[in-house]
Every structure is written in C-alpha cells, then in structure tokens.
C-alpha cells in the first residue's frame, strides 16, 4: 500500500516538472501549447543518445537535457511561437499539433520507432525497505530532485524580483505592461525555463515513462489534465493536481481488476479500470469545478 502511494507520488512529481511550464505559459499568455510534450521528448531522447551512445554519465545528462531544451524553447519561442500570440485558440491548437507531427516524424526518422530503454547507473537501481514499504531508489531520486525543483520554483516565484514581475504579468498583463514591466521578455524567459523543465522531466522520466516517438501525443492529455485540474494562476495548484493524478493513476493500474467480481456477478466481462482512472477523474473534476480544483474564485 505504502509502496503504491510512493510510486504514485514519484509519478506525480515527475508529472509536475513536466507540466509546470505549460501551466505558466498558459496563464501568462493564454497560449495553448499542445506541443509542450515535444520538449520533454527532446530531453528524453537527448539523454538516451548521450547515455547509450556516448557513455555520458546519467547525472550529467540531466543538466544537459535542461540546457538543451531551454535553448530549443527559447529559439522556437522567438522564431515561431511569437507569431501566434494574437491568434485564436483554434490556430494555436492547430499550430502546436503541426509541431507535434513534425517532432514525431523527425524522431521516428532519426531514432527509429521502437521504444528506447536507458541503462540507469547502478547507484539508482535496486530497492530498499523503509517502514515496511519497498521503495525504488530511482523513484526516491526522482522525488528528491522534483521536490528540490518545486521548492526552488516556489521560492523564485514568491521571493525574487523576477517572480513578482511574473506574478504581476499573470494576474493582469495589461496593467503590468503599463507599470513598465517587460511582459514579452518575461514570457520568453518563462517559456524557455518551462521548456527546460520539461526537458529535464523527460530526461528524468526515461526510466518511468515509456519513451517512443508518440510520446508528445501520449502524454499531452496528462499535461492538459494537470493544467485543467490545477489551474494556471499558481504553481501549488498544478503541484497538488499532479500528485493527485499520479497517485490515482498508479492506484488505478494496481487495482486494475477491481471490477472483476462485479462483472462476474452481472455476467459481463468488465474492463480493467487502470486505463480510465485519470480520464474519469478529469471529467468529474471538470463537472464539479469547471475552473479547476485549486483555483481561487477568479477565472480568466
């Protein structure tokens, strides 16, 4: 039981690092970037490439993925995304679907369609017993890293000058601009950091998430659920939303056949619930709280 909870939290933390960039860009520029997962995929593939082909240490791959995706994000933001800010949501959706298609086909071309497997360093393999729960060292590592990142982000957002500017821009971009805050620049920086975090998440997640060319599509819905449930005005909202989703998903997969006795009772073979848990959770949340679970009154 504790083990499942632990795995769920690790998964949730990872989800948070992957999705937080999307939340902030959405809240800041009201821009729907479905291609966010492509950056995570880039980070993941960079890790695979460095680790398996050039033998670079896994611990070095993580910052490499972070920096690479940050630069990638910054370049794409300046060249392509910047043209889309004043267009309709539909255009943004189509544009980012186009980017997803391009990234999927490119990765397929360069790396092949098969799922990639990384050889984690021996220090991260194995499990240990804590309080009667069996805990994977790798998952503990993921939790620690993501936890540190979360604390760092929260600190940067609430205590630094950049953070307060960012919050001002999210709350009301026009007024912030009027006060002399360079919202465009803040957005560029935020977009780059968000992409970098996604890249790091992708690199970290190579051992948990399955990495193949369809990655951006497969996890797109998860990121969107995090945003929808957590809202876009804070980072604590997405954080708790991620943990909730992670735990729910792992529980759902673990108790996949929970409906089997019921199915036997009514004589129909019921499907496992594992694949549905998060979707059902999302729909329920959106019915009960259309603006997200952790959102303060105001909507944008």
């Amino acid at each position: 039981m504790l083990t499942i909870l632990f795995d769920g939290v690790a998964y949730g933390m990872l989800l948070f690092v992957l999705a937080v960039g999307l939340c902030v860009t959405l809240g800041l520029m009201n821009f729907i970037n479905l291609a966010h997962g492509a950056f995570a995929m880039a980070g993941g593939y960079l890790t695979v490439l460095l680790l398996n082909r050039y033998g670079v240490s896994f611990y070095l791959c993580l910052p490499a993925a972070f920096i690479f995706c940050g630069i990638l994000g910054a370049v794409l933001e300046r060249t392509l995304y910047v043209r889309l800010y004043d267009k309709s949501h539909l255009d943004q959706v189509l544009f980012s679907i186009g980017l997803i298609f391009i990234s999927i086909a490119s990765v397929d071309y360069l790396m092949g369609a098969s799922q990639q497997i990384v050889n984690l360093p021996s220090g991260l393999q194995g499990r240990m017993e804590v309080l009667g729960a069996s805990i994977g060292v790798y998952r503990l590592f993921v939790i620690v890293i993501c936890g540190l990142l979360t604390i760092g982000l929260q600190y940067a957002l609430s205590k630094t000058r950049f953070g307060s500017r960012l919050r001002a821009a999210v709350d009301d971009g026009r007024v912030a601009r009027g006060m002399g805050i360079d919202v465009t620049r803040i957005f560029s920086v935020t977009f780059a950091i968000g992409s970098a975090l996604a890249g790091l998440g992708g690199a970290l997640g190579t051992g948990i998430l399955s990495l193949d060319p369809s990655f951006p599509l497969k996890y797109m819905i998860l990121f969107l659920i995090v945003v929808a449930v957590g809202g876009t005005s804070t980072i604590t909202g997405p954080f708790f939303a991620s943990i909730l989703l992670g735990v729910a998903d792992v529980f759902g997969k673990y108790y996949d056949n929970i409906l089997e006795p019921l199915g036997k009772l009514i004589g129909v073979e019921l499907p496992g619930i594992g694949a549905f848990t998060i979707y059902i959770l999302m729909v329920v949340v959106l019915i009960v709280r259309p603006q997200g679970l952790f959102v303060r009154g105001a909507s944008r």
Partner: protein
Amino acid sequence: MSDIDADKVRARASLLAEGRWRWPEVLFWAVAASLFFLVPTKLTLLSEIMILGLLALSIDLVLGFAGIVTLGQGAFFGLGAYTAALMAKHGYGAAPLLGFIPINDPLLGLVGGAIVAGIVGFATSFLVLRGSDLTRLMVTLGVALIVEELANKLKWLTGGSDGLQGVLPAPLLGKWDFDLYGQVAFIYAFVILFVMFLVARQLVNSQFGMSLKAIKQNSLRSRTIGMPVNARLVTVYTIAAMFAGVAGAMLAQTTQFASPDMVAFHRSADALLILIFGGAGYLYGGLVGAVVFRVMQDFLGGITPQYWQFWLGVVLLLLVLFVRGGILGLLRNGRDKFFPKSGKD
C-alpha cells in the same frame, strides 16, 4: 407593429437568399457525381474521401458555425462505426425488424449509428457548455480517449485491438450487394453524403443556423437578447454527433470492418485538419479539404511513405501562419479582389 412585420419579411427574404443554390454548388455536385464514370478505378478511395468529408462536415457544424473547438469528433465517428458493425455482424441471420427489415440492413445501420452517437453526443454536450476553449478541447479529447479505451478493452463486444471481423451488411435496399470494385459503395456514400449535406445546408440557413452564428460571434450578447444559448449549443452538438455517427457507420459498412483505429485520436485530428484545409464555416470546406487531404496523402506518402506526418505538420504550420480561412477562404478573398461586389456582402 408594421415595422416589426416588415423586419420579419426582410429577415425571411435574407434567409431565403442565403439558401439559394448558386452555379458553383451545382457544378461541384455534378463533378462529384461524374467521377463515378471518370475514374472508375479509384471508387474505393473516393468513397473514403466522401466519408471523411462527412465527418469534417460534422465538425464544421460545431466549429465553423457554433464556434466550439473540438478534438473529439472521432468518438462519435467510432461509436457509429461500431454500432453499424455490430448490427451487421449479429443481425446476419437474425429475425428481421418488423418482420421485413433485416437488422443488418445498411440504412438501418446508419440510423443505429446516428442514434447511438447522438445519445452519447447529447449526454456529453453538457460538458462542452462550460468553460473556455481549453476546457472544451480537453473534455472532447477526454471523451474520445475514453471511447477509444473502451473499444480496446471491451474485448467480448468489440474484438479489442484486433477489430471486429465478420461484418456482413445486407444488400442495399435488399437488392445491391457491396461489390469488390466499390461501385455500390460509391453510390451509397454519394447519396448519403448529399442527403446529409442538404440537411446541414437547410440547418445553417435557417433561423437556427443564424442564431448559432450569433452565438459564435458573441455569446454574451446573444444571451442578453433572449437567445437560449445553451439549448442551441446542445442541439447542434448532438446533431453533429449524429452526422459523425452516420459517417462512421458508412465506413464500417463499406469496409466491412471496425477497429479501435476508427476512434483513435488521429481520426479527430485528421478530420479537424481536413476542415481547416478546406476552410471552416462554408459547409463545403470539409468536402474540399477531404479531397485535398487524401490526394496530398497519396502524393506525399508516395515520395516518403512513413513521413507523410512530417509534411502534414509543415503544411499545418504554413496554413496557420500564412493562410487564413483555408482553401475556400483563399478563393473567396481572390473573388472579392478580382470581382469586387458593389454594396454589402
């Protein structure tokens, strides 16, 4: 009082004027019908294009006219496909309905597909009423993903990922079997598409259609002048779901197969892209888009088979960045430039 009457007369006249047939439309359908004789070797492809066109038309109703962004129309397409396939599979040899209509009759399958898709569309339409574009996007996508998972997991009903084999629709109208060359399938798809198109055309040129356009432009104002906004959106979403269901049912019947692929995300995305290629809000956008999309797929897929997706992405980027309103939007802009209309449009 007489002022109001005059307004009514004017409004009716403008609706009638909108609904008049113009020569490009007649030409379009004439060309489409003549393809039966012009390219008799490509009939299967043509039926598929028409089915895709019908699916894109259903998205046009919700997106182009009511302004609801949806990524989940594939759910209704798939529901229609599975319903028709199951009816054709289990209806074979079963007792006929009312004593003379076989359960696996193709037209009955269309009705069944439309009803099932319509019911689910109606039930999920209430989710779409709420929230922003993003929420709508997610909810429609979520519903589609749930349907896809169900198609995958309910093995006893759908055959799981292997798909549903042994789909044997009865002969059309009791006379014509679906043949290997796709002649019957072409005529079937053409007639159904034309009928559904007429329904859609009637719908958008009615007062109902006008109110949808008003809601799309400004839903708050529409509400304040007393329009039942939510009821209108629920209605159009349900109707569009039924259209998609018919399209799906047709695909299942003409290919005699149904699989989770028919519900998959790329169905919804492709159909949306088709509509955007052609131009949303014209009714013909989906049909023109479907032709261009499939021809492009054949052409680009011929050069680099696996990487059609890459070029699709590139075309999409260019379309969003440089071309507004799709092909029909381009045509309209061209027409307005070279044949400027006097007075108001």
